């Protein structure tokens, strides 16, 4: 058999025969859903924690909340994401009948939130104190000043780091298979177990991840360009 004939035969076996491509599309769907909700959860948690921490550092308010926030950061950043996923599935939600995809979203969201929190915090700290003072001196309250003056500038500064975190999160979801979710990685792995061919399914999975990451990069790039409007001299 020529190389090409062999290659097309393998392509057929891995992706067409028995509709095996469906393992990839179903997997992709689950991966996207998990990552999307995890990003949302992570951003909300991250934002809240960052606000609590910076407000505490600036004004001394929220002592108890700040303590819990620091505990959360330490625990989440101090343990592997896989262990967190397993604990949340087998311990926290053990006795609850709940969608595994939701469990994974919560787990990855909780995990990402810790990193996003520190990214947000670094962004807020990167803005000169004079910006807050200028806002406050005009009679705007702390929250309005934060929201309209500090945050827009902070987000512009942290966009590269935030994009980074979203990329890491997307790829991190590849451990979802540990709680028997058929995500993209698991999908490719199932094909491998059926066809005993490792190369094609795994390469296909890798390429799909790569394309998604390229899309994310493009998205961040566009946002950066939009936010850079005020830099032109």
């Amino acid at each position, binding site marked *: 058999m020529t190389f090409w004939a062999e290659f097309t035969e393998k392509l057929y076996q891995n992706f067409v025969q028995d509709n095996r491509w469906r393992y990839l599309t179903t997997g992709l769907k689950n991966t996207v859903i998990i990552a999307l909700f995890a990003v949302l959860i992570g951003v909300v948690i991250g934002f809240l924690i960052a606000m609590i921490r910076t407000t505490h550092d600036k004004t001394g308010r929220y002592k108890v909340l700040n303590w819990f926030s620091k505990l959360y950061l330490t625990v989440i950043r101090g343990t592997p994401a896989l262990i967190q996923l397993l604990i949340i599935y087998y311990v926290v939600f053990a006795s609850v009948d709940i969608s595994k995809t939701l469990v994974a979203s919560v787990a990855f969201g909780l995990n990402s939130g810790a990193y996003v929190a520190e990214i947000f915090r670094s962004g807020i700290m990167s803005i000169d104190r004079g910006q807050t003072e200028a806002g*406050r001196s*005009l009679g705007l309250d702390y929250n309005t000043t934060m929201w309209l003056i500090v945050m827009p500038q902070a987000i512009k500064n942290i966009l590269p780091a935030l994009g980074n975190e979203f990329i890491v999160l997307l790829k991190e979801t590849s451990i979802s298979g540990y709680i028997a979710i058929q995500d993209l990685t698991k999908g490719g792995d199932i094909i491998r177990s059926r066809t005993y061919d490792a190369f094609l399914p795994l390469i296909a999975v890798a390429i799909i991840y790569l394309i998604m990451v390229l899309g994310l990069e493009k998205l961040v790039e566009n946002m950066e360009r939009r936010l850079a409007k005020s830099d032109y001299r």
Partner: protein
Amino acid sequence: MITVKELHKSFGEKHVLKGINEHIEKGEKVVVIGPSGSGKSTFLRCLNLLEQPTSGDIWFRDELITDPKCDIDLLRRRMGMVFQHFHLFPHLTIKKNITLAPVKLKLMTQTEADELAMQLLNRVGLSDKADAYPAQLSGGQKQRVASVRALAMKPDVMLFDEPTSALDPEMVGEVLEVMKELAEEGMTMVVVTHEMGFAREVGTRVLFMDEGYILEQNSPEEFFSNPQHPRLKDFLSKVL
């Protein structure tokens, strides 16, 4: 309009203001001068509570603003502030910089605020910059916009914290000109500055601060021609 009684301010161990007593009448243009680290900026920043006084009382229009129950945000609407480093909002256009606070605080509609902004920008000769961003402006232009931003709140008093200290020498004049016009219109002003010419020409009263005290104060003529305190004599001999 503003009364200060036994104002003290410490940053940790550092005692910056050591008992300031002062009364500022409506329409006065009080110029505060003194060496670096004398506490003059801290004094100014205490007036609108950007710095929380360690002890002492401040009244603004018969209201005790150092009372914890006082609404600081409400008070600050009545006191405009111009900073040494402008602190324009870099992500907003010039017009938006000016209209943000009056519109958000529901003092004006966006249309009213836009009109006022254009009117004020016109006065300082910057109406063509309304849609520009702060990064596109020179230092002098930024400071004029910063003054307009504070004025758009229609304050009762304007506080200037070394408004020309961060400018190139050739841009100092244009900012002082705006302040002079403002003074002529009768605005109550408290100006911390190193511009002795401005103090002499525009000030109705000059205060000399050193090491947390107001050592001397007088009308500009007397202040500069007949200084009493040896520390002031020494200071003036170096800066004039």
